[in-house]
């Protein structure tokens, strides 16, 4: 059976499964729609959280980033997992005890302020919409590469599937679909990695393979990789970072941002008990770690395979480089997408792939008759998608990777849309505009908000704003600088009052926004940046992406000082904090 037919069958079967689950898990009440009736087993919730969290970026892009950044990319690995420790210990159990449906609802109630709640809604919607654009784009790309349909057609099919299970099932439908999506995506990620690890190192587990010996050379794999890349003038793969402060703060920002992202936090509202919320965060990280500990192996091994495919023999000898005519099939198929591009600069019909920005090496290369790096474009994203083809794996594995990429994008999109829809229907429609709305009315409002959110996401996916790539930093910055500190102080500082929290949130938000806009342009409009976005201009060498941690610190300090100077919160709020801190009574809080 040819690859295309096989891919259609595998992707079609997974979509049929998602729709089937949606029909089985229809939501009949607002509790089911917002919090899956609070009946989700902690292991299941962990799996759904993992699928919710691991987006197209984790599945497709992360290993590619690691492949080209080496040690420096560790900040993504630690940052996107370490946040779960904060979530488990500082937020999740208490928010579950609080027993409401949305993050802004907690902030509004705890700080007895409709203003605080609306500020939180704005942060939530901005962070979630920016995120969802990337997912919709990912759906379109995966469809167009693997099913060879137009990007827009792919986007419509993906949108239609999400529409069915999100509008029909709400959180309940989304949760059970995400469990299925997790299984698809983790198989798609680990199966090729196991095959590749076996062939390069003889080790079945890629996690062990990364630190084992390279079978062909007998050297440790990482030492071999260091040698191969440095021989062609590239930076040593395992080299230490040159900007320790930035790596430190970038990692911290991703951790705090992860713990503060509303679509992740709200998953912990779905479990039956406070104790389950604690276990569930652990299970979520187990399922995330399976992918995140595999990713560095995929990155390193893909880089080694890529280098060895092109540099087939001795460096500098005319026969040492792959002849363009003899390039493998995967090379040709990725050339047609434009993500891989070759230009025969010296006209010898062979491919020279080296770092021509390295002056010493470029001088040597010139003596061999090389006229510059001829791999003019190697998109990082192809590392995961082309990996099974590079390793020569059977077609069913390639079809599985297509289904996995789609599962990763769809599950994250659904979780984000759920966060947006519940904020609109619960925090705006019910709380601000129409407090007397009936349960049926609110359920209808939630379904309509969901449908509108999906339509907007699809529109933005079709017409992505030019700044789409930049705004991911914005989403994490917002979550880190505003939402995380506000919730944490709400639980751990009984004395924190409305004014302190609100002013703190706004201060953290503003300083982070201004720092990002300063280097990336006001509202990302090109040409309006105040200084060139480079390390020489950054404050203490801190990149805009790493500034969320500083924003969070500002938020904490400002909130503390302001609340100290103003009067303590009313007694019933202090009682609320006391009750959130102890688990007993969480069951009763559900039936509000």
């Amino acid at each position: 059976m040819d690859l295309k037919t096989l891919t259609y069958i595998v992707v079609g079967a997974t979509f049929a499964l998602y729709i089937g689950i949606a029909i089985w898990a229809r939501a009949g009440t607002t509790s089911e729609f917002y919090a899956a009736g609070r009946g989700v087993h902690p292991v299941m919730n962990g799996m759904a959280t993992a699928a919710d969290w691991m987006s197209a970026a984790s599945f497709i892009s992360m290993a590619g980033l690691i492949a080209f950044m080496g040690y420096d990319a560790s900040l993504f690995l630690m940052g996107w997992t370490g946040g779960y420790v904060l979530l488990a210990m500082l937020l999740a159990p208490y928010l579950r005890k609080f027993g409401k449906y949305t993050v802004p609802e907690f902030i509004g109630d705890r700080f007895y302020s409709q203003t605080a709640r609306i500020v939180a809604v704005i942060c939530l919607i901005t962070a979630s919409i920016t995120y969802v654009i990337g997912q919709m784009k990912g759906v379109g790309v995966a469809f167009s590469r693997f099913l060879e349909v137009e990007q827009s057609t792919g986007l419509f099919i993906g949108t239609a599937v999400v529409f069915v299970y999100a509008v029909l099932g709400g959180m309940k439908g989304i949760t059970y679909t995400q469990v299925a999506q997790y299984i698809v995506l983790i198989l798609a990620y680990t199966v090729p990695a196991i095959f590749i690890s076996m062939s390069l190192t003889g080790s079945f587990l890629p996690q062990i393979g990364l630190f084992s010996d390279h079978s062909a050379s007998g050297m440790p794999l990482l030492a071999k990789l260091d040698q191969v890349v440095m021989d062609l003038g590239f930076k040593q793969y395992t080299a230490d970072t040159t900007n320790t402060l930035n790596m430190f703060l970038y990692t911290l920002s991703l951790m705090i941002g992860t713990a503060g992202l509303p679509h992740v936090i709200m998953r912990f509202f779905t479990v039956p008990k406070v104790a389950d919320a604690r276990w569930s965060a652990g299970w979520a990280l187990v399922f995330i770690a399976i992918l995140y500990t595999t990713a560095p192996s995929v990155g390193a091994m893909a880089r080694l395979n890529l280098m060895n495919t092109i540099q087939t023999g001795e460096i500098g000898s005319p026969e040492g480089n792959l002849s363009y005519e003899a390039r493998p099939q995967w090379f040709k198929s990725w050339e047609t997408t434009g993500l891989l591009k070759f230009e025969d600069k010296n006209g010898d019909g062979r491919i020279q792939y080296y770092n021509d920005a390295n002056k010493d090496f470029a001088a040597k290369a010139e003596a061999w008759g090389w006229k510059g790096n001829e791999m003019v474009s190697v998109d990082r994203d192809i590392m995961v998608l082309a990996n099974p083809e590079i390793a020569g794996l059977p077609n069913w594995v390639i079809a599985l990777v297509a289904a996995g990429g789609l599962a990763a994008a769809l599950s994250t999109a659904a979780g984000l849309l759920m966060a947006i829809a519940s904020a609109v229907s619960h925090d705006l429609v019910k709380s601000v505009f129409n407090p007397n709305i009936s349960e049926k009315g609110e359920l209808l409002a939630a379904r309509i908000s969901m449908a509108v959110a999906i339509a907007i996401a699809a529109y933005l996916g079709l017409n992505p704003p030019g700044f789409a790539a930049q705004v991911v930093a914005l989403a994490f910055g917002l979550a880190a600088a505003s939402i995380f500190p506000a919730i944490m102080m709400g639980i751990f500082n009984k004395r924190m009052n409305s004014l302190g929290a609100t002013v703190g949130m706004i201060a953290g938000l503003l300083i982070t926004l201004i720092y990002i806009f300063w280097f990336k342009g006001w509202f990302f409009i090109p040409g309006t940046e105040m200084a060139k976005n480079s390390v020489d201009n950054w404050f203490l060498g801190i990149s805009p992406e790493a500034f969320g941690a500083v924003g969070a610190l500002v938020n904490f300090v400002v909130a503390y000082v302001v609340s100290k100077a103003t009067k303590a919160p009313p007694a019933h709020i202090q009682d609320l904090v006391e009750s959130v801190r102890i688990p007993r009574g969480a069951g009763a809080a559900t039936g509000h």
Partner: protein
Amino acid sequence: MSENSSSGAAYWKANIRLVSICLVIWAFVSFGLGILFRPMLSGIKIGGSDLGFFMAQQGSIYVFLALIFFYAWRMNALDRQFDVHED
């Protein structure tokens, strides 16, 4: 809560202590071993690279996992010890 607030305060103190210990370990393995102390510990070799590289790309994630499960287990025991557990 109000009728036995001294036990409530002790529960909260025990909780803060547990969280603090866990977060010190959390920071030590990731920011410490994985980033700040890497140059100092580069003599410790692990499979073709050093301890810092291993901690940054694998080790810290395993410690995070162990920490969350340890915390959940200890906390659930504390809930019962201070009689604030559910059902």
